[in-house]
């Protein structure tokens, strides 16, 4: 326990002097950040008995080998080296984060500012767009996670994305570059998305890590999806064996809105995804899809929650896992239907395939239903490939390995159905196929 406290202290002891350096004293943003750190201190890092982090003992894994002093971290990513990694899409926004900080000059922005506002999340932005303070750190569910609170305290140069009313924005790609070649950085990327009524946007996030040292990415995306708006957020997590991450996506949905998340995880020492969707009004749709295809000692924990607060909404969740070698997959899906949320339809499904005896899966699909006129279900399976299907393929001259890869590919492919960008889709399909060998 004392170890946890000393870890907490080594994180927060720098806060006061750090915040003074970067934020004007007395500004609203500085106050919000202070509240974030205070909330982190009262929540504390999840200990051994924490139910939310039961299968992902963060404190044990994170240890103290990081450079808590953000100023000491060196980033060698240059503009060119960043831009080389861009998807070859002309008519799109390419936004660059280096070690958790949004770098406007490295980024390429194609959308007009009348349609899509792309701004540094700083004090100036909070005066120009007062709604920032209205939403920042205010999404329901966010206050319960110590890492989200920590991010609120320590984020610097976050990103504010606002899609104007009825605008159908170009695709937005967000690239997170982490430099672990000479130091072990902690990054605190922060993104606030506001989709005005009737607007549609698609955001894709991908991370690049240079070097062999440890990285810790504590990120938070908050999305406010207004009436009849649509936001799609896709994440590709193909990290290194030394990468630690606790990443949160918190959305609140207004009437008739749609929100989609797609999360694809392939590698990482310990990756924890917290996805929390609030259905705050009627007739909304919330979708969560995910795939975790892991080998080696990778550990991915998907912790998702849909909170139905109002009637007549729909949520659907599909997570699939393929676990090989000593990988560990964790899935915790919660459907919460409040007393007012009558006529809710909520579905959840989690399927896993274990390819080796040293791989582990822990799943906990959870339903908490307080309204009676609802249809909710969850299903969860863990098993192997169908022997007969493999035999069928082999009887037709397909080698065993190839037959298995074919079956697993089909298994994984279902999670790609909500992915709208062909380039990203192809890339993910390639990773899946390569991993299957």
């Amino acid at each position, binding site marked *: 326990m004392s170890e946890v406290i000393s870890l907490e202290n080594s994180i927060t002891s720098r806060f006061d002097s750090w915040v003074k350096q970067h934020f004007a004293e007395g500004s609203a943003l500085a106050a919000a950040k202070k509240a974030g750190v205070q909330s982190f201190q009262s929540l504390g890092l999840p200990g051994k008995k924490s139910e939310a982090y039961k299968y992902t003992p963060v404190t044990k894994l994170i240890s103290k080998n990081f450079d808590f002093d953000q100023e000491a971290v060196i980033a060698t990513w240059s503009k060119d080296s960043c831009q080389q990694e861009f998807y070859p899409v002309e008519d799109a926004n390419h936004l660059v984060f280096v070690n958790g900080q949004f770098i406007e000059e490295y980024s390429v922005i194609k959308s007009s500012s009348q349609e899509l506002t792309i701004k540094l999340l700083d004090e100036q932005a909070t005066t120009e767009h007062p709604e920032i303070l209205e939403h920042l750190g205010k999404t329901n569910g966010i206050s319960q996670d110590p890492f989200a609170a920590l991010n609120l305290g320590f984020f610097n140069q976050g990103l504010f994305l606002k899609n104007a009313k009825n605008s159908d924005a170009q695709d937005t790609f967000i690239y997170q570059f982490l430099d672990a070649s000479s130091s072990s950085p902690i990054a605190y990327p922060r993104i606030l998305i506001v989709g005005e009524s009737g607007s549609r946007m698609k955001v894709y996030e991908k991370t690049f890590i240079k070097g062999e040292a440890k990285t810790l990415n504590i990120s938070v995306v908050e999305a406010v999806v207004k009436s009849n708006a649509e936001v799609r957020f896709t994440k590709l997590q193909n990290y290194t064996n030394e990468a630690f991450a606790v990443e949160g996506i918190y959305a609140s949905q207004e009437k008739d809105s749609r929100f989609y998340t797609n999360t694809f995880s392939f590698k990482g020492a310990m990756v924890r995804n917290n996805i929390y969707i609030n259905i705050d009004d009627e007739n909304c749709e919330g979708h969560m899809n995910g795939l975790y295809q892991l080998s080696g000692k990778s550990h991915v924990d998907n912790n998702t929650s849909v909170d139905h607060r109002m009637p007549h909404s729909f949520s659907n969740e599909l997570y699939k896992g393929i676990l090989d070698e000593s990988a560990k997959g964790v899935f915790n899906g919660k459907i919460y239907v409040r007393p007012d949320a009558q006529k809710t339809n909520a579905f959840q499904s989690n399927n896993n395939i*274990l390819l080796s005896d040293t791989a582990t899966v822990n*799943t906990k699909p959870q339903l*908490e239903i307080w309204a009676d006129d609802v249809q909710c279900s969850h299903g969860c399976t863990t098993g*192997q490939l169908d022997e007969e299907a493999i035999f069928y393929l082999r009887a037709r001259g397909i080698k065993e390995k190839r037959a298995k890869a074919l079956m697993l590919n089909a298994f994984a492919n279902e999670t790609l159905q909500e992915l709208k960008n062909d380039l990203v889709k192809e890339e993910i399909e390639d990773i899946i196929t390569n991993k299957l060998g």
Partner: protein
Amino acid sequence: MSKDDQILEEFTSKEYEHGWSVDFEADEAPLGINEDIIRFISAKKEEPEWLLEWRLKAYKRWTEMTEPRWPNVTYPAVDYQGIKYYSAPKQDKKPKSLDEVDPELLKTFERLGISLQEQKRLTGVAVDAVIDSVSVATTFKETLSELGIIFCSFSEAVQEHPELIKKYLGSVVPASDNYFAALNSAVFSDGSFCYIPKGVRCPMELSTYFRINAANTGQFERTLIVAEESSYVSYLEGCTAPMRDENQLHAAVVEIYAAKDAEVKYSTVQNWYPGDKNGKGGIYNFVTKRGICAGDNSKISWTQVETGSAVTWKYPSCILKGDNSQGEFYSVAVTNNYQQADTGTKMIHIGKNTKSRIVSKGISAGKSQNSYRGQVHIMKRAENARNFSQCDSLLMGDKCGAHTFPYIDVENSSAQIEHEATTSKIGEDQIFYCQQRGIDEESAVALIVNGFAKEVMSKLPMEFAVEAQKLLALTLEGSVG
């Protein structure tokens, strides 16, 4: 008042039919718990030294533990010093036969519909009747002993078969297993002991009937069932309590040991006093039940119908240690008014080719909360383990809740696990369909609920099935609106 409200009103005013109490002279321990009380209980029972030591050790562990708060239930803190840990109907001397048992006691059980007169029993069911802290009578002992079956009260077993008790007591549920198990280990007063020797198939159902009678008492009984190689036994448990305004604590422990090729079937119809319609009073039912399939090809099956208790906290579990062993859990949990139930099972797969099956049906009405909490754990060496779980919840009314917390942990790639859960209410179309065919709403609901619970009900022994079906109908009558 609409018809629906009327029906609801009628139902909620329906009284708990076993809510009466009888005054008999009782032999009681003073309020509270401490080492002296434990010594007092142990002395009352004339227990050997090692058992007292075991109790004291458990008590010491208990004082170091804290009450679990993770179940999805809320209740005011239990005042452990405000409970009487021992209360026994006074009997001058130990009755040799039923003729010597206090007729008041016999009448009490007659009134509950449990006849202790062997000749009056229609079917062959041997009963161990427990009032408050002690067993008052055990029937059919002689018939059973001819086969070598030991079926007696726990205190008797301590005196007559100390070697068996010493070997198996705490072997499945260790004294320090959890808060309530530790408390039970320290203060348990009686219970049933059952031993089926090798190769014997028990010819009749064995049954224990628990009754809390005295006020301010807790009931802490302990059941131990040992099934030796290739034996079979079916065991039933029933319980009721008087209506009282205060909450009473019931913290029992049930241990089952199944050796190679043995099969144990354990059925419970739990009908403790659930409290009144405003949620006042009722039993806190905090029970630890666990069985171990220690030998190859053994099987343990739990069936439970839970209709009573203000708060239930109960997870009958199976440790599937032997190869090819099987565990089953069938449950119907019904909650109404302010009842809360957090119940489910644990299936721990250790041996090869082990199988488990979980069927849990939750029905919530009124302002009640009903949770299923279960774990399926496939250990590394459990090759070809198979599990099927199904948890269905039925909601009646918009003030109640149904929750599911399944934990699925798999460490072996050859495992096949399926889990599914659904939550729904009785469809208007279903009721309409029945009404069209001349079945009134009330009967239609009963029909649908019965169908919903049928899979579990069909696993109950015949005598219990009738009682359970009646209970189900009584508990839910008119609760659809």
